[in-house]
């Protein structure tokens, strides 16, 4: 069944914006979506898959290589023809074993042909695409450690069962979860570029619209998809345009100072906050078709780029998003 169209998601503007930004600039480093059950987190991520522009890759390549020379030897490909394929969006289910994530010895080949071959895992499939972890805060620790390492280096190294293999694994990490069920370790939090908090809409009219669209999607799928595919295509074109204009975007020196001052005032750990905020603001400017980065872009992007990088204050009931907004107000005026 085709996923729910991205453009048909009612409201949740911040979440949609964050996902679009990672599509424009993958180096922003992923999105973390936190919210209650039934707020449309999974729907949005699965919708993103259908929205993303296709990529050019070698047919049959296990790591979706762009050029024939990048295809790993262990893949054993004979013909190396390129083809268009949808951007991979790979689900990492909770409780997935290490074998499935990193890849392991191919038992089938070992048993039937007596060959020692490598069976690529989820990380290989997610290369150049997205890796989606639902309930990321419930993920087991050893898998988290593994992901941290790979997300950092962009390379998956497998040393087990007599295999010694390394392959590229650059992906955008998308995680979702319900913060009431468990906390995320600060190290993993930091690896996500942007973080958004979603809640279900409170107005009756908006809620009615949500249910109406979902119902139409389930009961009258063909007509519904027809109607929204055009809207999805518009977003896709805008993403492609923004990718191009991102390279020409001017970044005034003053903006860098602004970003640094803001992060200093917030006391966010490390320099990743500055970098991400800058990248996100630039992608946002490109998305809005502006020619230069301005304070307005930084101001709009600051909450989602910084809110998960603050030290936790158990007495602050308003949440870190408000803290960021307050500091933005103070620093940028």
């Amino acid at each position, binding site marked *: 069944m085709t996923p729910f169209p991205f453009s048909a998601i009612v409201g949740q503007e911040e979440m949609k914006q964050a996902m679009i930004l990672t599509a424009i600039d993958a180096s922003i480093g992923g999105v973390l979506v936190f919210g209650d059950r039934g707020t*449309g987190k999974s729907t949005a991520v699965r919708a993103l898959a259908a929205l993303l522009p296709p990529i050019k890759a070698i047919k049959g390549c296990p790591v979706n290589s762009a050029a024939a020379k990048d295809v790993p030897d262990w893949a054993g490909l004979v013909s190396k023809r390129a083809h268009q394929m949808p951007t991979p969006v790979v689900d990492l289910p909770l409780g997935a074993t290490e074998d499935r994530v990193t890849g392991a010895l191919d038992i089938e080949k070992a048993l039937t042909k007596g060959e020692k071959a490598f069976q690529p895992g989820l990380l290989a499939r997610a290369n150049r695409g997205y890796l989606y972890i639902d309930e990321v805060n419930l993920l087991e620790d050893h898998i988290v450690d593994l992901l941290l390492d790979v997300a950092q280096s962009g390379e998956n190294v497998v040393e087990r069962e007599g295999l010694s293999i390394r392959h590229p694994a650059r992906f955008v990490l998308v995680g979702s979860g319900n913060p009431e069920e468990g906390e995320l370790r600060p190290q993993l939090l930091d690896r996500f570029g942007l973080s958004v908090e979603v809640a279900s809409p409170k107005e009756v009219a908006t809620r009615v619209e949500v249910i109406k669209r979902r119902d139409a999607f389930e009961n009258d799928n063909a007509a519904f998809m027809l109607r929204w595919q055009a809207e999805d295509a518009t977003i896709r074109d805008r993403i492609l345009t923004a990718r191009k204009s991102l390279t020409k975007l001017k970044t005034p020196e003053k903006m860098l100072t602004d970003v640094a001052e803001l992060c200093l005032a917030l006391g966010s750990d490390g320099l990743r906050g500055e970098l991400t905020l800058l990248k996100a603001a630039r992608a946002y400017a490109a998305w809005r078709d502006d020619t230069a980065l301005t304070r307005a872009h930084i101001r709009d992007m600051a909450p989602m780029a910084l809110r998960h990088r603050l030290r936790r204050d158990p007495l602050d009931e308003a949440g870190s998003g408000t803290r960021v907004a307050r500091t933005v107000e103070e620093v940028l005026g």
Partner: protein
Amino acid sequence: MLHGQWKKSLASDIWTRAKLALQLLQLDPGLGGICVRARSGPVRDQLVKHFDPKARKLHPTISDEALFGGLDLSATLASGQLVQEKGILATPGTLVLVMAERATTGLAARLAVALDKNQGHVLIALDEGAEPDEVLNPKLAERFAFHLDLSNCTISDTDTAGPKEHSVRLNDVFVPSDMLPQIIRTALELGIDSMRAPLFALRAARAHAALLGRDSVTSDDLEAACALTLAHRATRIPEPETDEEPPAPPQDENSDESGEDNETLDLPDELLLEAVRALLPDDLLDQLAAQKARAGRGNGTGAARKGNRRGRPLPSRAGRISDGAKIDIIGTLRAAAPWQTIRRDASGREGLQIRPADIQIKRFEEKSDRLLIFAVDASGSSALSRLAEAKGAVELLLAQAYARRDHVALVAFRGTEAELLLPPTRSLVQTKRRLAALPGGGGTPLAAGLMTAFEQATQASRRGLTPTIAILTDGRANIALDGTADRKQAAIDAQQIARILRANNTDAIVIDTGNRPEPALRSLAQTLNAAYLPLPRADAAKLSKSVATVLGD
């Protein structure tokens, strides 16, 4: 009067309701599934058989291979050819999850994804939980339209009348325009935040109309659907309205003429709400409290368990070789030994022959260590004697710690701030050295003391320890968190941190060492959900004994 009759039967007879829910599920698999809470017995079996005799069973420890398919290792080894097995999820149909309350988060997540894909699976979760906090994983429950408690149902209540014939196609059922806003208003009134709930209510109403052969949804359908899909999700009890009889309900006419031409339903919100309220469980508030208590603990996170650094070996058990499992070689050989002669004869091969079924996996039982955090008042009022006794108690407890696997930490608060005098440790020598010089005097910054204790507790639980905070003081808080001498603000700060501690499910004991019990401390203990012990003139031995008693060992 159809309306009244239906309502009576629905509210009184759980069995009828369960059957109705199953019929709706049969008609529209998009409703996801049903969670049935009941002990194993004939009532439950009757229900499952009634729904789908060909239903396939899942158990909570089912492997990924069985669910999604994969290599059939035994068959491949036996035949020397690649044998793939098909997973249970590959073919749509009814799945019955037994002992659903034991399902791990991982399994719940995988089943939830399968249901989200909408491939025609219907899941019946049989929840046999005995305690209020043993329930089906909320992630999975969220994706079910229905939830029923059959624990009070007996076999004599059941009947096996087959499902009714229905002639109307689901997609042809007309939905009046004002129905959706009404469902959503009702859901909001009941404090249901999830958007799946109203969607299920809409689908259930449509299915209910189709089931009864109507081509348009009537107020009856809506009431039945909302009652079945919303009642168990309610998080608050709506204000009961005045008891007077509602003015002649107009929906009677509607239901009689099956609503051929009526575009709207004309069902007052109150009546709909009333139908749902009739089904609200009596102990709703208790259940909510139990849910809240559970929420903080998480389920299946590594953090809670990973700190368990040692384990007691348990008898090994037959199992598959998977990630992280350790093979018990002796056990495996022992299991394979009796079969060697037969196997040798059958295969005509010499040597040791081990089949996958022989493999025994090692198991360990783990218990997490406990951390006792003493938050000791070192202010002027408590002064030196108090502190000396606390130090003595810490040392006494540590001396016994080896047997009980306790770690101890000591936080002292005096003047304007709290200080971590002894980081979590099990070393008696280190403790003695650190505790030797402990200054006293100044105000009582209780809030700061609690705050430091809280930070230690959070860090400890992240490392897999189970923290308990013991607060020793004799007076009221008089220094606020920001260090100002403001009695009122100090009390507010202390209460607030106490609430946070409670929300984090941290165990605590409040020991009042004053000559007279202090009411402010008693109320602090209440906020913390902690034991309150007035112990005037307590000495070290008495203190450590009391703490040990409260901790329950």
